[in-house]
């Protein structure tokens, strides 16, 4: 992510020579340029409010800006550990691996991109399927990983969501998905588009069986993911300020030939327009899920010996 990073050396230099007191006319960019070259540090700049904040403090705070409550990107793994009881869960379908059905090549081969992102994230594709308990309720959570090709949906993501739903059907437990995706993956062409239908169908099977499906939207949820399973939750929850929409903002601006109003396509915008049920702070997400799960657990008792 594009946080501006500060090193200890840069900070001590600033401390000794507090330029902001003395030299009002000095162009700001110059300092910022200097900071951008520094690769690592203890301080980060908030993407939303632009305040300089202590990195450790942010980490202690569920990766939320202590100044403006902006929710920073966190990995799918981290999300899962924040939600499950004791942060413990089992993953499944880890053995599904993407292939390159179209032999797709742009400036780079799709195959090479897959390898690169696999090395970067330690995942085979942009999703983790997991099972565990939240407040004692057994659930399946399929969490998308934005760090893997922008969380894009292709064959493996689609298949894992469907298998996640099928596990819920077999075990009669609720499904939770955590969307974090730019949309369908271009490199698998029409097969990626078909994942929209495939995942929506699987969600429909849960509905037929009377099993709840909770969809959590995070920054960003757009394109083919928002236009399929992510917007089909019985309950749709979003993290604050998340970007949610169908079309990309640049495309819209080019189409209508005007700038977009502030706050357009944010979670708050969607709530105001009746598209989502609630916005929930990351720190309250677990307790909110427990409340919702307990409501649905009071429904008709599940059939079968291994029901919850």
């Amino acid at each position, binding site marked *: 992510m594009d946080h501006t990073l500060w090193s200890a050396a840069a900070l001590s230099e600033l401390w000794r020579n507090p330029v902001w007191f003395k030299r009002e006319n000095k162009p700001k960019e110059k300092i910022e340029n200097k900071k951008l070259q520094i690769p690592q540090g203890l301080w980060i700049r908030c993407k939303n409010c632009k305040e300089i904040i202590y990195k450790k403090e942010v980490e202690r705070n569920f990766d939320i800006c202590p100044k403006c409550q902006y929710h920073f990107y966190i990995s799918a793994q981290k999300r899962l550990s924040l939600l499950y009881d004791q942060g413990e869960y089992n993953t499944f379908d880890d053995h*599904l*691996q993407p292939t390159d059905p179209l032999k797709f090549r742009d400036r780079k081969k799709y195959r090479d991109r897959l390898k690169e992102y696999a090395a970067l994230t330690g995942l085979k594709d942009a999703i983790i399927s997991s099972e565990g308990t939240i407040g004692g309720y057994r659930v399946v959570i399929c969490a998308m990983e934005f760090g893997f090709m922008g969380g894009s949906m292709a064959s493996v993501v689609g298949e894992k969501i469907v298998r996640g739903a099928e596990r819920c059907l077999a075990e009669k437990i609720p499904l939770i998905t955590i969307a974090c995706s730019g949309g369908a993956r*271009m490199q698998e*062409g029409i097969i990626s*588009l078909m994942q929209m239908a495939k995942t929506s169908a699987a*969600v429909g099977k849960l509905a037929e069986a009377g099993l709840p499906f909770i969809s959590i939207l995070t920054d960003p949820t757009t394109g*083919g993911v928002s236009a399929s399973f992510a*917007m089909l939750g019985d309950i749709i929850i979003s993290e604050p300020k998340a970007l949610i*929409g169908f079309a990309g903002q640049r495309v819209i601006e080019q189409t209508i030939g005007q700038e977009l109003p502030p706050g357009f396509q944010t979670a708050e915008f969607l709530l105001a327009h009746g598209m989502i049920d609630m916005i929930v702070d990351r720190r309250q997400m677990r307790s909110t899920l427990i409340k919702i799960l307990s409501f649905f657990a009071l429904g008709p008792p599940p059939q079968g010996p291994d029901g919850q």
Partner: protein
Amino acid sequence: MDFEKQFVELDSAIKEMRQLATEWGDSARQELKRLKKKRQKVFYETYAKLTPWQRTLLARHPDRPYTLDYINIIFSDFIELHGDRKFGDDSAIVGGLAQLGSHKVVVIGHQKGRGTKENISRNFGMASPEGFRKALRIMKLAEKFRKPIITFIDTPGAYPGLGAEERGQAEAIARNIYEMMFLRVPIISIVTGEGGSGGALALGVADRLLMLENSVYSVISPEGCAAILWKDHTKANEAATALHMTAQDLLKLKVADEILKEPIGGAHRNPTMMAHIVRRAILRCLAQMSRLSEDKLLEDRYRRYRQYGVFRELVE
């Protein structure tokens, strides 16, 4: 269209030679013969090996027959229905009740405009949520009265606009996909021109997907793909090939069930003939599906979409 220009040039040369032939006699007549032969050769050769990008251009040809053209030729007694009963009536999608031979059906499709003025009112066939919701309402009507659904797909994509986003473009598309999956009547979709991503799929969850020979269907437009992956929108040509978006590609990928052959030179060179080919195909599909029970129909449809995806399962 670039590759059509050569025919225009040859045609005008032929016309000139024909006039000269009356004055000059035999030598001109021979030249005329030669030109005619050449034109035919070039014509057949060009259309025998169209590139994916050329097919995309043909799929977008401004003279190509649109949904209402097909409806007028194929069906009788078309009664157009309007509005989504929620917000408005989106003329980028048309739909209504129609008769096809002995079948009473519901027909829905994207509608592009002919000329600038109509295109503006039709929004170039790019639907807003109202359009998708109108389509869904009419499909629900079809289900209620147990009539098969025929959809015609021809759209650059769902409209990327302010109002469309405000009124839930993503939700509208998702809802259509979801509901179509479980409608208890046969659904036949025909991609007649451009199948533009989610906007196409929102009318395209079907038991049979037919594609015209020069139609395309893709997750993203080649221009959009080129802009993102090549950082250069002029690389649309390469992107069109890479995306595997032609009818022939989709047949191989088992997304399309059948390709409907177009008159040589494209559907726009003989819309009536094209419409009759489409008509025959629809009747054939209807006959196949009339033998299926509702449960079997839904089971097959679910299985059809369940199996899309290419991946490897490593041994655990």
